């Protein structure tokens, strides 16, 4: 049997030590009536056979298309060295660092990761990550609910609609009130959001750039929230964060993000990385693992998991969260990627993505009857274009040309059936964008 080393002789010797006549005897505790009626899992295959089968399945998927699909999940360039470093078994075959002396590699990396994301968002504290950007946002809301002991949560409709569904799923039985404030042509309605935040409000939740790609300043909203005793939560986009005004500078109390864009493959939705950062005053409410710097008895610097009294293995039902396994290797990947591209590289990635998106918007808007959903506010690497016809038709027509034109918004925003969310990264070339524009024009 592959991966099982025991020879028949060794099995015999081991059974003799145990004092059992057969392996089956070791399972005598399982009553006969509970033994499986069937176990018809197909017979095993060789490594080569399994690989062939999966290669065949992979080949059925279309990955050759020119894609402008984003929506919070972006195809940025990943340096080769990241893959090589992440393939080290010392990292990926370790468990959670419960024994710090034998896990300094993982622990120092978590500490460095926390530092990197805290700096990106200009926040004071960060944890080692949670499952993904959506569950990070949910955990942030629960932090606010515990911190304020209030039950009302104000959410902008311009926050990723899928994240809003996740939030609703988790909070259904918790007697929270989720108040959704409608967007205004792809922008956050600041006046309505400000008005919705009152003395009962636990948290106000926004996204920047928002789901439509629009960039705004939430400083004044967050200041109102502070006056009302509510927690301000911003869901961000790490690659653009080297360029955009940070959640910290706007006065956010918690900033979360999907970390996928920092070097993780799209991989059909996972594994991704939930980035969580917050102000010091909230750190004891933050779920998940946190590495801290300390020293041993002879003064050597080392790292440990700290503030563990928040966690399920100590607090059980009183823990801040149930999270145990998280996305540690993805956090390491994000860190390695950040270090390889570095300050300048990441800033260039952001600038190129923004440049390409503006070029694409310019090319599309030269076509008669195509406009931007919001012509007044700036956007980053993603924008919402409005067509004279249903955006799904555009997507369908361009698929035949080998192009994924973007994400039609009608599915989540009734009334916006003609709107298409289009994203660019530094990987798009001008010729690719020109081709998109030509094919869109042809499809109209």
């Amino acid at each position, binding site marked *: 049997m592959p991966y099982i080393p025991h020879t028949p002789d060794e099995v015999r010797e*081991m059974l003799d030590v145990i004092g*059992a006549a057969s392996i089956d005897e070791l399972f005598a505790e399982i009553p006969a009536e*509970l033994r499986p009626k069937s176990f018809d899992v197909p017979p095993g295959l060789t490594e080569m056979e399994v690989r062939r089968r999966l290669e065949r399945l992979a080949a059925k998927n279309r990955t050759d298309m020119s894609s402008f699909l984003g929506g919070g999940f972006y195809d940025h360039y990943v340096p080769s060295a990241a893959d090589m470093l992440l393939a080290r078994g010392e990292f990926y075959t370790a468990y959670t660092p419960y024994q710090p002396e034998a896990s300094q590699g993982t622990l120092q990396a978590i500490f460095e990761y926390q530092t990197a994301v805290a700096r990106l968002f200009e926040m004071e504290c960060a944890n080692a990550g949670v499952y993904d950007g959506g569950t990070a946002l949910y955990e942030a809301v629960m932090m606010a609910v515990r911190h304020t002991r209030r039950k009302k949560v104000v959410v902008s409709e311009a926050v990723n609609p899928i994240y809003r569904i996740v939030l609703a799923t988790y909070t259904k039985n918790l007697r929270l009130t989720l108040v959704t404030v409608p967007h205004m042509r792809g922008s956050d309605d600041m006046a309505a959001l400000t008005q919705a935040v009152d003395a009962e409000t636990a948290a106000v939740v926004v996204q920047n750039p928002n789901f439509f790609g629009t960039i705004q300043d939430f400083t004044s909203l967050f200041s109102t929230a502070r006056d009302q005793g509510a927690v301000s939560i911003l869901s961000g986009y790490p690659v653009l964060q080297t360029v955009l005004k940070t959640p910290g500078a706007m006065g956010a109390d918690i900033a979360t993000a999907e970390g996928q864009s920092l070097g993780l493959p799209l991989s059909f939705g996972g594994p991704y990385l939930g980035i969580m950062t917050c102000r010091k005053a909230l750190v004891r409410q933050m779920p998940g693992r946190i590495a801290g710097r300390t020293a041993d008895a002879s003064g050597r610097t080392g790292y*440990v998991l700290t503030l563990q009294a928040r966690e399920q293995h100590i607090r059980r039902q009183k*823990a801040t969260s149930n999270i145990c396994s998280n996305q540690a290797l993805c956090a390491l990947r994000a860190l390695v990627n950040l270090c390889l591209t*570095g300050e300048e590289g990441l800033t*260039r990635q952001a600038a190129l993505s923004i440049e390409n998106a503006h070029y694409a918007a310019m090319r599309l808007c030269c076509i008669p009857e195509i406009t931007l959903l919001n012509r007044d506010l700036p956007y980053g690497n993603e924008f919402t274009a409005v067509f004279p016809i249903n955006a799904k038709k555009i997507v369908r027509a361009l698929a035949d040309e080998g192009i994924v034109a973007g994400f039609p918004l009608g599915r989540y925003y009734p009334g916006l059936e003609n709107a298409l969310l289009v994203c660019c990264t530094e990987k798009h070339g001008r010729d690719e964008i020109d081709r998109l524009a030509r094919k869109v024009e042809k499809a109209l």
Partner: protein
Amino acid sequence: MSTVFAKSVPGREGVWPEKPRTEPVDFIPEGLLRGRDANLPSLSELDVVRHFTRLSSKNYGVDSNFYPLGSCTMKYNPKFTEEVAALPGFSRLHPLAPQLPGGGDMVPGALEVMYETEQLLCQITGMAAFTLHPMAGAHGELTGALMMAAYHADKGHAKTKIICPDSAHGTNPASAAIAGYEVVSIASKDGIIDPEALAAVLDDQVAGVMMTVPNTLGLFERHLPRIVELCRAADALLYYDGANLNAILGKLRVGDAGFDVVHLNLHKTFGTPHGGGGPGSGPVGVSERLIPYLPISRVFKDEAGRFSLRYDYPKSIGYVAPFYGNFGVMLKAYAYILRLGGEGLTRVSENAVLAANYLRKRLDDLLDVPFDRTCMHEFVASAERQGKNGVHALDIAKALLDRGYHAPTIYFPLIVKEAIMIEPTETESKDTLDAFVTDLREILALAETNPAAITAAPVTLPVGRLDETRAARAMEITDDLG
């Protein structure tokens, strides 16, 4: 070793893309821009490669060390599955693709893998259906608890409590609480659930009972048939924490045994590596009566054999994850299951149980084993006896690190004093197990003759025991020096 930030040299070139023709301020008003550095590192590729290669050498992992960390199933993870998961035909798929018009046609291979994995997990566990969305075991528990709530609410009888035995893993009560339940704990008897204690608290407000089989002491729950009966009579659903499935593959099917919900830890039983803390994958299987409540979306296969995603399930609990869970992890588990097949999986459990019992017997003159009978894939010893010399489970753990072993689990289960929870797994050879016994024997002998040598451990690692109190007090969790 200094941090990567301390090594940064401003201006040093990394893996940069070309210089943009424009600047963000050409498009975005200055007031919305950051306007200052993020102080991320500036390093050469070699700087970075060397930094992380050196960091990696400060870690124990299964590839380098025996890792008998109880409850965590730190077995060897085949390498080919890593390559499979990295195939561009999978790794380049955008998760929103299936939501595009005609998008299902862009990802048929991925949907087929998901469908097939669900089918295999159904066959392995005897459950009626699976969702792959939960991203770890605890996430699966929460998903299960939400489904239990939806089931009872739908039947017109929302309930308020979930029962967990005191031997349960910490995530069980935490997940139940987060789903909005009051958690009722019951005391174990002889290391397993006492049906009388259960019956005493099983009132009409109990939505479900969470069990781990074998439990966290490595013991089979002998009273399972009686527990199933009690739950049925009280209209309480029975939840199976499948983190320990490595013990019972081919020997017990959760669904046949009468459970309504089970979560599996693919990152334990099904051979996907743990990554230093994740990513995991915690699929949840359900019995027939819970199918309507499964999370959205679900993979559907039509008569023509075509796959699609469906979203229209009015009774569903909703979305527990934005997409389809940790797809990349699931791919590895799928490849692992195909590779081993039904017989291979059965051998996995047989050999895991064989190894655990072998170690238990070889160590039984050295350590107390509070519930000393045939164990399953792991057993819990106690270092209480060593306490008289001032040597604790923690010290033994640290002394093992010095000898090149990752330590067993010692912070858990809380019901055994000075617990040492040992799970050797099926992939470790008899030579490794024997060497471990020899070294542990030597440590325990030293604990008698020279306890100071044990309480000073570790001495061979990059650092000695670290001051955790200082870490919690100083709360230095980001690098302000570098």
